[in-house]
C-alpha cells in the first residue's frame, strides 16, 4: 500500500497551444490550465475526463514529451520539467509510460528481445551478454514466455502486445509509471487480464501509477484516488471510494450518471445536455456552468477554486 513519500508532484501545470494561421492571430488553445497533483509512492492516482479534457496532455508534460507552458513537475522532490535532454534521459529510468495503442507503440521491425531490452541497453543496466536472460525474466513476469523472444510485434494479439508494452515500461524498474489509457483499446475479456497484471506489478514493485483513463468503471477498480478533469482543469479530487459513492461536483455526477449500467433492471438516467465548449474560448467563471443543471449567477462570473469539502476530498464548485 501507499507510503508517505511523494513520488510525483505537479504544480500549476499549464499548456497553451498557439493556433496557426492568420485568421486566428493570438488565439490559444488552453489544453491544460493550471493542474496540480500529488502521487504518493506505491499509490494509483486516476486522472479521468472526456476527450479534450487535457488529461493526456498532463501525462505527456510529466513525461517531458510535451514542454509545459508553465508549472513544475517534481519526481521524488527533484524538479524535472526544466532538465536538459541528457539529464532528463538519465531520469527516465524512474519514470515510465504504458501507451494506449498496443499496435502503434511497438516498432514493427524490432524483435521482442530488442523492444523489451531497449531500456536495459539505453540506461546501461544490463550488459549485452546477459540481456536475453534478463528480458526472459521480465517477459515471464508479464505472462509471456521465452518462445516469444524472437518474434515481431505483429505476431501477437492485442492483449499480448499490451503485455509487451508493460514489460518495456517495467524493465528499468521505474518507481513511477504513467499509464495512458492502457486498456481502452483492448477487448473486455482481455482488459481484466491486463488490469490484474498492472495491480500485481504494483504490489510487487511498489510502483506509483498515474492512471489516465476515460472508463470510470475501470478507474474505480484500479485507483486509490481519482482526479476528474474538465476542459483543462481539475474539478474534483478524492479517494476513489468517496468520489464514486458521493461525487460532489455536478460534472462528476453527470459523468457517473452517463455510464450505461450493465443491468437492465436499472432505468436509464437522463443525459446531461450540451457539448464540451471550445478550449480556445472557455466559459467564464466555472467552466462547467454552460452545462450544469445547478448553475447560479455567480457560477458565470466567479471561477470556483478547488477546495476541501471533506477529508481528502476536494471539489471546484461553489455549491459542493
Amino acid at each position: 500500500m501507499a507510503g508517505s513519500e511523494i513520488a510525483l508532484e505537479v504544480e500549476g501545470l499549464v499548456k497553451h497551444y498557439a493556433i496557426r494561421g492568420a485568421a486566428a492571430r493570438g488565439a490559444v488553445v488552453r489544453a491544460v490550465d493550471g493542474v496540480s497533483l500529488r502521487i504518493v509512492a506505491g499509490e494509483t492516482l486516476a486522472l479521468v475526463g472526456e476527450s479534450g479534457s487535457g488529461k493526456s496532455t498532463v501525462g505527456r508534460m510529466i513525461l517531458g514529451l510535451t514542454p509545459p507552458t508553465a508549472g513544475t513537475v517534481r519526481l521524488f522532490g527533484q524538479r524535472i520539467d526544466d532538465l536538459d535532454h541528457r539529464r532528463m534521459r538519465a531520469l527516465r529510468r524512474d519514470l515510465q509510460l504504458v501507451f494506449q495503442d498496443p499496435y502503434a507503440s511497438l516498432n514493427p521491425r524490432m524483435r521482442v528481445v530488442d523492444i523489451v531490452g531497449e531500456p536495459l541497453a539505453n540506461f546501461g543496466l544490463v550488459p549485452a551478454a546477459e540481456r536475453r536472460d534478463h528480458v526472459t525474466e521480465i517477459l515471464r513476469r508479464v505472462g509471456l514466455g521465452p518462445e516469444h523472444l524472437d518474434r515481431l510485434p505483429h505476431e501477437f494479439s492485442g492483449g499480448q502486445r499490451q503485455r509487451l508494452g508493460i514489460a518495456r515500461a517495467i524493465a528499468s524498474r521505474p518507481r513511477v509509471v504513467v499509464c495512458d489509457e492502457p486498456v481502452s483499446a483492448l477487448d473486455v475479456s482481455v482488459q481484466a487480464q491486463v488490469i490484474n497484471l498492472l495491480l500485481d506489478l504494483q504490489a510487487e514493485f511498489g510502483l506509483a501509477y498515474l492512471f489516465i483513463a476515460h472508463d470510470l468503471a475501470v478507474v474505480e477498480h484500479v485507483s486509490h484516488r481519482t482526479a476528474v478533469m474538465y476542459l483543462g482543469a481539475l474539478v474534483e479530487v478524492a479517494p476513489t471510494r468517496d468520489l464514486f459513492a458521493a461525487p460532489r461536483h455536478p460534472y462528476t455526477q453527470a459523468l457517473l450518471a452517463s455510464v450505461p449500467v450493465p443491468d437492465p433492471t436499472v432505468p436509464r438516467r437522463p443525459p446531461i445536455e450540451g457539448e464540451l465548449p471550445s478550449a480556445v474560448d472557455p466559459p467564464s467563471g466555472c467552466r462547467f456552468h454552460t452545462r450544469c443543471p445547478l448553475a447560479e449567477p455567480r457560477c458565470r462570473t466567479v471561477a470556483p477554486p478547488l477546495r476541501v469539502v471533506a477529508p481528502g476530498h476536494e471539489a471546484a464548485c461553489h455549491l459542493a
Partner: protein
Amino acid sequence: MSGSPPPALEVADLAVDLRSGGRTIRAVDGMSLTLDAGETLAIVGESGCGKSVTALAILRLLPQRIATMRASRLRLGGEDLVGLSEEEMRRLRGNRISMVFQEPMTSLNPVLSVGRQIIETIRTHRGLDRAAATAEALDLLRLVRIPDGERRLGQYPFEMSGGMRQRVMIAMAVACRPAVLLADEPTTALDVTVQAQILDLLQDLQRRIGTAMVLITHDLGVVAQSARRVVVMYAGRKVEEAPVGRLFADPRHPYTLGLLASMPRLGSSAAHGPRGRLREMSGSVPVMDGRIEGCPFAARCAHALDLCRRSAPEPVEIAPDHRVACWRAQERLEMAHGRV
C-alpha cells in the same frame, strides 16, 4: 401462414467467408436472427467476432472481391433479399434499411458541406426537389436534436464535434424512415456523456418513426440499457440469444458468463473497497483461419468436456426465446475462478 405481420428482418444460416491473401476465414457461421417491427436487438461480442460483418453482409456491402456469403433466408419485411440484383439492393439501402457506422468522420465526405450531403441523400431516395429536400433536411436536424439547423447545414464535417457528426449520420440514415436501422458501434468513438445523449436519441427516434434497430456493440452496459433482446456472438457464431432481462439474470453460455464476470462495474469500490482483482477469462479470441473443430470457445472454457472439443453445439431453446449453443446449457455453470 399466421395472421401476424412478418418480422422486420429475418436472417437464417448466414455464412460469410472472407479471403485475405491465400487464406479464407469463416467470419460468420450459421448466424440466424429475427428482428420484430420496432424492437431493438443487440448483437454483442468482441472485435473479430463477426458482428459487424453480419451487418455488412445483410446490406450486401462486403466487397465481392474478398467476401462470399450465403444464407438460407434473408428477408426484409417479408421481401426476399437473396435474389435481388445489385441495383435493387442499392435502392433498398438507405431507404427501407439503413446503417449507422462507428466513425462518423470517415463516413462523411470531408469536402462537402453537411447540408449538401443530407439533401443529396434525401433527393436520391425520395425524389424531392431542392427546396423540399432542404426543408426536409432542416426537419431531420430538428429530429436528431441539432440546434441552429440553418447554420449547421452550411458547415463541413470537420467543423463539428464527434457527437454532432454522429447525429448527422443518424439523420441521413433515418431520412427515409427505414423499417430497419443497423447501428454498428454507434457510440464507441464518443465520450460517455455524448454516448448517453446519442443512445437517448436513438431510442426516441425509434419510438417516433417505428424503426426496428439492430444495435451492434461490445459494451454490455449499452446492451442492458437499450435493447429488448440480445444475441451474443463468439468466433463468428451465435452462442447465446435471450431477452435482455434473462440474459443478465440467468446467462447460460460460459462465454456470456465470463464477459459479465470480467467487466469492471461502477459501484465496485463501495461493495468491495477499491482495487479488487477482476475475474479473468483466460486466453484470447481465436484466429479463425481454417475450420475450428468443436465449440470455438472450448479452448478458453473452464467447463469444456471432451464432447465440446469434438463437436460444435447448435443453439437449443432452453426457455422461451432463450437459445444457447452449449452442450452444458441446461446446467447452471459458475465462473471458474472467483474474485481474489
